[in-house]
C-alpha cells in the first residue's frame, strides 16, 4: 500500500499512508498516547482557543509530571493541536485532516464555538473518536451520537435555570425577604440568542412572579445602544439580562448604561456567556463600568483550585484562570482518567470508559457540582450554571457556594 501511495504522490496527487480505521495503536504499551485539541487558534475566536490551549498544555504537563498513565506503564500523554480557523466548514475540514493524519488518536476535545463543534463531531463520530466539548448547543448531543460528551449544561438547560437562579441569588444577597419582580432583557438576533430568549420569555418567569417590562432585540454588531438604554431606564426593571454574543457589543452596552448613570449599583445586570468574563472586555470597557456585573457561565475555577490558578497565572501571565482554560484542563484530566480505566490506547474502549465514569472526586472536582457522569445522550448529569461577578477589574466566583470565593453583591435600591 505504502509503495503504491508513493507512486501516486509521484503523479502529483499526494497520498499518505495513514488509514481511516478505528484501529488502535499497534503497540501493547505505547510510550505515548495522543489526544487531540481542535480549537480556533486563528480568526475571530482565536483568543478563546488560545485560552483553551493554555489550560490543556498545563494539564498535559501535570499528567506527565505525575508519571503519565499508570495503567499503561506510565505512557506519556501527547497533545496534538489543530486549528479550526474561522468557519464551520474549515473546522470540519481540520477534523477530517486530523483523523486522517493522526490515525492513533484515542480521544480529543474542542471546538469552543458550538457551530464548530457540531461540524467537527460529524467527522469524529464517524470514526468513533471520543470527543469532549464545552460547547453549549443542545444539538451537539441531540443527534444520537455515541462518542460525544458535553460537559456544560446545555443552552436550553441554562436558559431554564437562569431566572430561578437570579431570583435566588438576589433574595439571598439582600436577606430582607425582598424578591425581584420586574426584569428586562437585551439580546441580539443570532440563532443561539433567539432560542435562548424563547425560553426566557416563556411561562417560567410568571411562575417566579417576574414580569418582563422591556425586551430589546438588536442586530449585531451593535452600533448605538442609546434608544435601548432609554427604554430600559423608563421601564425601571429590578434587574437586566444581556444576551449578547461578542465583546464589542458587551463593551458598548456596559459603557452606555454607565453613561446614563445606570451602573450595577443602580441596576443589577447579568450577562450570559464566557465573553462577559474575559480580560479583553476589561481592557476595553474598564473596571469601573463593569463593576458589579454578574456573568452566568458553564464553569469557573473556584476556591478549590486556588493553587492551580496560581500556577496557571504564573505560567501564562494571564490575569486569571477562567472558563475556557479550566474546561480544557478538566477535559485532558477526564481523558486521562478514561485511559487509566481502559488500560489500552483504543478509542472505542476509551469511549466506553467515558460512558461509565461516575465520580465525585478526581477530575470531577473541577466542576462546581463535583460530579462526573454522562447520561445516555452524552450530557454531563448535574451540570449547572455558575456565576461570577466583576469586582475591581476581576471576575470572582459567587455561585454556587462550592466554588464561591466572594458573596454576591446585590444593591438595595
Amino acid at each position, binding site marked *: 500500500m505504502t509503495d503504491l501511495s508513493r507512486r501516486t504522490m509521484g503523479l502529483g*496527487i499526494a*497520498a499518505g499512508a495513514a*488509514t481511516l480505521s478505528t484501529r488502535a495503536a499497534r503497540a501493547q504499551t505505547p510510550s505515548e498516547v495522543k489526544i487531540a485539541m481542535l480549537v480556533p487558534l486563528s480568526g475571530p475566536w482565536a483568543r478563546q482557543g488560545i485560552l483553551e490551549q493554555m489550560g490543556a498544555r498545563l494539564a498535559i504537563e501535570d499528567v506527565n509530571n505525575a508519571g503519565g498513565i499508570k495503567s499503561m506503564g506510565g505512557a506519556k500523554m501527547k497533545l496534538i493541536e489543530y486549528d479550526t480557523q474561522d468557519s464551520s*466548514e474549515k473546522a*470540519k*475540514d481540520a477534523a*477530517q*485532516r486530523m483523523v*486522517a493524519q493522526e490515525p492513533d488518536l484515542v480521544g480529543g476535545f474542542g471546538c469552543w464555538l458550538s457551530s464548530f463543534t457540531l461540524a467537527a463531531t460529524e467527522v469524529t463520530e464517524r470514526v468513533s473518536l471520543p470527543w469532549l466539548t464545552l460547547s453549549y448547543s443542545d444539538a451537539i448531543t441531540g*443527534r444520537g451520537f455515541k462518542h460525544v460528551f458535553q460537559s456544560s449544561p446545555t443552552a436550553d438547560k441554562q436558559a431554564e435555570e437562569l431566572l430561578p437562579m437570579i431570583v435566588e441569588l438576589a433574595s439571598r444577597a439582600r436577606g430582607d425577604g425582598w424578591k425581584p419582580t420586574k426584569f428586562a432583557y437585551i439580546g441580539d438576533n443570532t440563532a443561539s440568542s433567539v432560542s435562548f430568549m424563547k425560553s426566557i420569555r416563556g411561562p417560567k418567569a410568571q411562575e417566579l412572579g417576574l414580569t418582563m417590562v422591556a425586551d430589546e432585540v438588536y442586530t449585531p454588531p451593535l452600533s448605538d445602544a442609546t434608544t435601548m438604554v432609554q427604554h430600559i431606564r423608563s421601564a425601571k426593571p429590578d434587574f437586566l439580562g444581556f444576551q449578547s454574543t461578542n465583546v464589542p457589543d458587551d463593551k458598548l452596552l456596559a459603557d452606555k448604561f454607565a453613561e446614563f448613570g445606570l451602573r450595577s449599583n443602580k441596576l443589577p445586570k447579568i450577562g450570559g456567556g464566557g465573553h462577559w468574563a474575559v480580560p479583553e472586555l476589561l481592557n476595553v470597557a474598564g473596571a469601573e463600568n463593569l463593576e458589579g456585573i454578574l456573568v452566568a457561565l458553564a464553569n469557573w475555577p473556584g476556591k478549590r483550585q486556588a493553587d492551580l490558578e496560581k500556577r496557571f497565572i504564573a505560567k501564562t501571565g494571564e490575569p486569571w484562570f477562567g472558563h475556557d482554560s479550566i474546561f480544557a484542563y478538566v477535559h485532558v484530566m477526564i481523558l486521562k482518567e478514561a485511559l487509566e480505566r481502559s488500560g489500552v490506547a483504543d478509542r472505542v474502549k476509551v469511549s466506553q470508559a467515558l460512558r461509565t465514569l461516575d465520580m465525585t472526586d478526581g477530575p470531577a472536582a473541577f466542576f462546581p457540582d463535583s460530579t462526573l457522569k454522562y447520561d445516555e445522550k452524552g450530557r454531563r448529569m448535574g451540570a449547572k450554571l455558575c456565576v461570577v461577578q466583576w469586582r475591581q477589574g476581576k471576575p470572582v466566583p459567587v455561585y454556587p457556594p462550592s466554588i464561591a470565593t466572594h458573596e454576591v453583591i446585590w444593591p438595595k435600591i
Partner: protein
Amino acid sequence: MRYGSAPRLKKDLVTLGIVSVAYLAISAFVTNSYYQLIMTLVPVWALFGVSWNILSGYGGQLSFGHASFFGIGAYVVTLALVYWNLTPWLGIPLGMIVAAGAAVLIGLPTFRLKGHYFALSMLAYPLAILYFLQYLGFQEMSLPMHRENPAAYLEFTNPHYYTLVGVILLILGVFVCMLVENSRFGLALLSIRQNELAAEAAGIDTKLWKMRALVVSGMLAAAAGGFYACVLLVVTPDSVFGMLVSAQAVVVTLFGGVASIWGPVIGAAILVPLAESLNAELGSMLPGIQGVVYGVAIIAIMLAAPDGLFWTIRDKYFTPKPPAPLPASLAANAPPVAQPAPAGSLLMKVEGLSRSFGGLRAVSGVTFDVRAGEILGIIGPNGAGKTTLFNLLNGVLSADEGTAILGGQSMLGKKVHAVARMGVGRTFQVVRSFPRLPLLDNVIVGAYGAGFTDADAIASAAHALERVGLSALAGVPAGQLTNKQLRLMELARALAGAPRVLLLDETLAGLGREECDDVLDVLQRLRTEGTTVVIIEHTMHAMMRIADRFVVLDHGRVLASGLPRDVVENRSVVEAYLGKKWAAKQDA
C-alpha cells in the same frame, strides 16, 4: 448538432472516459481519508465550474452569484433529509428542479440588465438568500447520520465511494456541456457573448437562450451543491451561498479555460488540491497565507495565460489539422428560398419615419422605397442618422412616428430577432466573429436565427459561403481570416438566413482599394442573383460603382434621392458633404 460535431463528440467522450477511469484508479490507491476528500472535492468544484461556464463562459453573462444555485441544491438536499428523511439520491434531483425554478425567477428580472449591472445583480441573490436562511434559523444544518443502510442515504464509510459519485456527476455535467457546445444552443450562446445585438439581428431570441442557459446552468450547479452537502456533513449559509463559493466557480473556469469543456475540469484539478494542501500545511502557521499564495498563483497564471490553461496550451502545442474542405454536395442541399419578388417590384416602403433623442431629431420624416433586386445606397455625412435609420428598421430602436412595411407586414414595434425572422439581414460596422470557431460555424448562426433545422442550417450556411466565395476556407478558424474575409463572413452570416433584404452598415469600412473592389464584386454578384441590398457607405467611388439609387440623409432628413449621377450633382448634396464654399466654387 453542428457540422462535424459527431467525430468531435466521440473524441471528447473517449477522453472523458479515459480521464475518469484514470482518476478513479488513482483515487483507489489513496488511503489517507483527507486526500481522498480532496479527490472528492475536485469533481464537485469542476462540476460547479462547468455549470458557470455554460452561462458565463459560453453565454458571456458574467455571474458573480452562482452560489445561489449551488446553495439551493445544498439546502434542498439537507432540509429534505432533515425534515422528510428524503434520501439525497432523490434530494439532489429535487434540488435541481428547485434551482431550475429559481433560475427562471432570477432570470426574469435580471436579464433586463447587461454587462457589469447583470454581474453585480447576480451577486446580490446569494447574499440575500444567505441572510434569509439565517433569519429562518437554518444557520447550521447537519445531515443526520444513518447507521442503518447508510448507502441508501448517500453515506459511505469508505470515502472512495464519494469520489466515485462525484466523478459520475461530473461526467454527466460534462456530457451536458458537450451537447450544449455542439448544438445550436452553444452557438447561440457564443453569439450572444460576442455581441448580443448582432445575435438578435441574426434572428436569435437572445432572452430565451439566455434563460435556457441559466436554467441548465442552475440545475448543474444545484447538483454540485447537493452532493457537496453530503460531503460537507454540515451545511451553513456561508459555506454554500458565500462569496467564496461563487468565486470558486469563476476562478476554476478562468484558470482552466473559459468556454471550453475541459477548462473547469483542468482548473479544479489543479486549484482545489493546491488550495486544500496550502490550507492544511500553512493555515495553522500563518493564518490567511493560503489565500495569499492562492491569489498570487491565480494572478500569475492569468498574466501568463489570460485565456486559461486549456486555450493557451492548445494554441501553443497543438496546431489543429488543416481543415478538410466542405463537400460540394452540402451547399447544393440548401433549403429552397422563397422565390424573390420580381425585380423592380416594391419590397419595402418607409414613410415619415422619425426618432428624436431629447431635442435632437436624429431621423426626421424619412421616406423612401426599396425595390426588389436593387442596391440602394444610403449616404450622408457623419451624424446624418444613417445607422439610426437602420436601427429603427430592424427594431434596435423604436420609432416615434412613421411606418415601415416589408412585404405587407409592418417592421416596427417588433423585437430585433422577430424583425430578422421577417427576412431582414443586417451587418454591423464592427465585425463580431468567434475567433476559435471555424468559419462555417460563424456563418451558421445566421441560419439558426432564421429557424432552419440543423441539416438545413448547415446547407444554407455552406451555400452562403459559396455565394461570397469563401467555401475553401469553411473550416478555418475565424481568428485567422483577413479583414476582408471577415467582412465577407459577416455578409455570409446575414445571407445564411435567406433574407429578403440585407441592411449592410459600412461593409467596406477599413478595406484597401483592391479589397474593396473584391467585396464590391461579391455584392454585384448578389444583385444578379436577385438579392436586395440597402447599404450605408462613405466611400463615394464604391457607391457610385454599385448603387442603383441613392438616398442622401443630412441632419436626419432626406436631402435627395434618385439615380447616383443626379444625386452627386445636386447642389444641396455637395453643400452637405463639402460645405457652401465648395458648392459656390463648383457653381462658378
